């Protein structure tokens, strides 16, 4: 296995980060009413959390680059799927 040395400091940092971000969302719901800004903040938080979890727990920080070849297509395809579904769901040509 060619992963780097287990890095406990980063692990703790990442875990704490995810936990804090996760709980931060609670006051957010209480205070902000639904708006694009809130949606943006939430998406940003999700993104950060996922990055932290992926890098730390799933070792992507240490893993070989070739693994990205496995994961990246799914992100692209997921994006394509989401994008192509949008006109029919949200934009409504028929109306």
């Amino acid at each position, binding site marked *: *296995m*060619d992963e780097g040395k*287990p890095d*406990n400091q980063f*692990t703790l940092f990442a*875990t704490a980060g*995810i*936990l804090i971000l*996760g*709980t931060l*969302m*609670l006051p*957010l*719901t209480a205070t902000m009413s*639904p708006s694009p800004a809130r*949606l943006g903040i*939430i998406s940003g*938080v*999700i993104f950060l*959390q*996922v990055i932290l*979890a*992926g890098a*730390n*727990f*799933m*070792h992507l920080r240490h893993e*070989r680059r*070739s*693994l990205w070849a*496995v*994961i990246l*297509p*799914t*992100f692209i*395809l*997921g994006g394509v*799927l*989401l994008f192509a*579904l*949008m006109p029919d*769901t*949200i934009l*409504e040509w028929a109306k």
Partner: protein
Amino acid sequence: MTTQTSENLNLPNGKLAMWLFLATEVMFFTGLLATCMLLREAAPVPGPGLSPWPAHETVHVQPWLGAINTVLLICSSLCVLLSHRALLANQAGKARRWLGLTLLLGAAFLGVKGFEYAGKFQLGLLPGKIGESVNGLSPQREKLLQENGLSYVRDVQERLRALTATVKPEDLKTPPKEIQAAHALLQLTLDGKDEKNSYLRPLTPGQLGDQVNRLNGEFPSLHLPPAIPNGNLWASCYFVTTGIHAIHVFAGLVVLLVLFLFSLGRDSPRLAGRLEVAGLYWHFVDLVWLILYPIIYIL
């Protein structure tokens, strides 16, 4: 594990296969979550000024339960990681303890989930079973939904009757406020044939739904079946996304339990490899929850 030549990827088979499996899982959850999010965005606005998606209070979604579950899952992920590191450092006992803790945390997650589900079942917040008649529909649509709407009216009537029946006739002059309100609403739902004190034009299901929602807000103790616009769609999305995730958690727990039992027997480097692979899956389930939690509990 046979990695044969330099031409091949320098990844053990198990790990590569798990990553490939996770790629399929990414597609699976993308499809699932995209479906639910887009359906939510596309949900028709039930009336002027109304939100197309049920508010958390209406459908009894408690964000703090979700937050607890987030903490549980993150901690369990951390435990798997520490267990794996302990195995690599040849500390079998420590690894076993961390793994045991993971199992407990995962089980606790499912417990919280079960508690939530039990509440939904109790309140009848289930797909296909939520009253959904609202104002703002065209007469044509209203007609189309008449049967469904009427059954909703029957449900409300039943509940109102049960409420007013607890009050003895002699107390009717000074009943609690909410019972008075319930009695008044009951009268509004009846047409001329059933009872004496009634109106010839009973409320339409849509109007009744509005009244019920208002009354529920005023007197939460009444527990009238609320009319929830797009409630059935909400329930569908809620149960399918969280349910499928819970199944994944359960499957992960089974795998970890098997590994835990293994670790009781003997300690071997193969276990470390297996735990890493199983851990990858567990972390992925965790990661899905990180996306699911805001979608269900926050947005």
